[in-house]
């Protein structure tokens, strides 16, 4: 199996508080959609924050393309090619859509290239083009999530990590978010998704990871995870995959 990112038995938490994840591991293959599921408090978001450098790793290793990421700041990890969209979407409410996209390419030095990529994104996402001069804070939740996801594409990252992209969105809009995610994957971007709607997340993923009490319990092809009766019982509310 080709490894793009490997997380080995990491321990992490907030400040000096107790460890939220302890013994989490993960192997990310290029070009696939990986979905992490688990109950509330399992440490799913914490794991993503530890990978992107927002939380310091107390034990274990995060290795990306053979390079250890432990101790790097979020901006340094982004420059390696790992983007993170947190639950709150991390938009700049008082900046326009175009300015938000410009911030998405903050690490790019070539201004012309940045503007070219922004135009490309606006071309692909008509709703963003229509609202290019509108402040992000005045858009609907779905439009904001679209902007947050589209913005990651500006720097052509290797991995995009999405924390609960469906949170607070209407069912119809949720499917649009998953469609964007699939489009990203089709373009060769590796996706690491944390999703409370486990059934939907796994249905749209290639690989499933079950996290509970801060450690990885199981990982395998999403279809296998979906079909496992114990996982269905414990984490999918007894729902069977259609």
């Amino acid at each position, binding site marked *: 199996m080709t490894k793009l990112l490997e997380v080995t038995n990491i321990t992490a938490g907030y*400040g000096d508080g107790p460890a939220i994840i302890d013994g989490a591991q993960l192997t990310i293959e290029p070009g696939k959609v990986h979905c992490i599921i688990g109950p509330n408090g399992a440490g799913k978001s914490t794991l993503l924050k530890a990978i*992107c450098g*927002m939380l310091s790793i107390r034990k274990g290793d995060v290795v990306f393309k053979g390079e250890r990421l432990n101790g790097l*700041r*979020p*901006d340094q990890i*982004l*420059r390696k090619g790992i*983007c*993170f969209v*947190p639950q709150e979407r*991390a*938009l*700049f*409410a*008082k*900046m326009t859509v175009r*300015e938000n996209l*410009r*911030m*998405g390419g*903050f*690490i790019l030095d070539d201004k012309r290239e940045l503007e070219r990529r922004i135009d490309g994104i606006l071309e692909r996402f008509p709703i963003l083009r229509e609202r290019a001069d509108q402040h992000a*804070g005045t858009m609907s939740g779905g439009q904001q999530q679209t902007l947050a996801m589209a*913005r990651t594409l500006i720097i052509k990252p290797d991995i995009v990590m999405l924390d609960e992209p469906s949170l607070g969105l209407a069912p119809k809009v949720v499917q649009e978010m998953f469609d964007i995610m699939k489009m990203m994957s089709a373009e060769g971007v590796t996706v690491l998704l944390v999703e409370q709607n486990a059934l939907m997340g796994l249905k749209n993923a290639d690989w499933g990871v079950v996290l509970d009490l801060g450690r990885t319990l199981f990982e395998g092809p999403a279809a296998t995870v979906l079909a496992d009766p114990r996982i269905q019982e414990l984490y999918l509310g007894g729902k069977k995959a259609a």
Partner: protein
Amino acid sequence: MAEILQILILGLALGGVIALMGSGLSLVFGVMRIVNLAHPALIIGGAYITYLAFKTFDIDPIAMLPVAAVAMAAVGVVLYRLLFQREAKSAKYSEMTVLLTFALAMMVEGLLGGLFTNTQRVTSPDYATAAFFIGDVFIPKGQLYAGLVSLAIIAALSLFLKYSRLGYAIRATTQNREAAELLGVNVQFISVLAFAIGIGLAGAAGSLVSFVFSFFPAKHWEWIAMLMSVVVLGGMGSILGTVVGALILSVVAAFVGTWIGATWSTLTFFLALFIILLVRPQGLFGEKPEMA
């Protein structure tokens, strides 16, 4: 009519200087949530640098402005590294900075008092006491120059924030520190930079203040209330708000000073602070707390 025009001109010219005095305070709060009660004491630091150069080498206060700005910006870098950087991730950071900067203001005052005594000082270039006359209306050259230079500096700052790469990073960090960091902004560097710019603006304001007002080390207590009123009216963290707030309050204070009495002029700022906090705590251009 001429009297109204006269008051308006004086109020606007002074408002420009007050806007510059407040803009650094606003920027530092916007980016780092530091309520810098020592800001006016550092303005006085800039005023003394200018005063020394004027008295010793006869250097024009406006010509000294870049020097005072750079010198105070360097002081800002040292202060940030020493006092603020370590606690930047504390949940009670803003509250802590109130106490910390209060103590800093006392220290700066003590230091300046030790160096220069508590005698009132003022620089006196030729233009400080000269005026233009348009009919019955006179425009004091000192206030006019100070106001225009202040507004030019604020305009340059606004262009920098709006169009430059670092300006984008500062604005982004002001709005959403975590998001900025996730998009590749080195927020620690941006914090130092913004603090240095903020204190540099205090230094620049000090040069202009040196010939507009007389000053002494303890003068900053009078100014902090005035500047807080201006910044709160405009909306904490908004440079545009600070400019608008400064112009409005200065003009109102000028009218109050002329028509009711000079004693009541200062009260305009205190009264405005109370009213704003009661009626519209987010100010003219600030965000409502629940939306933050």
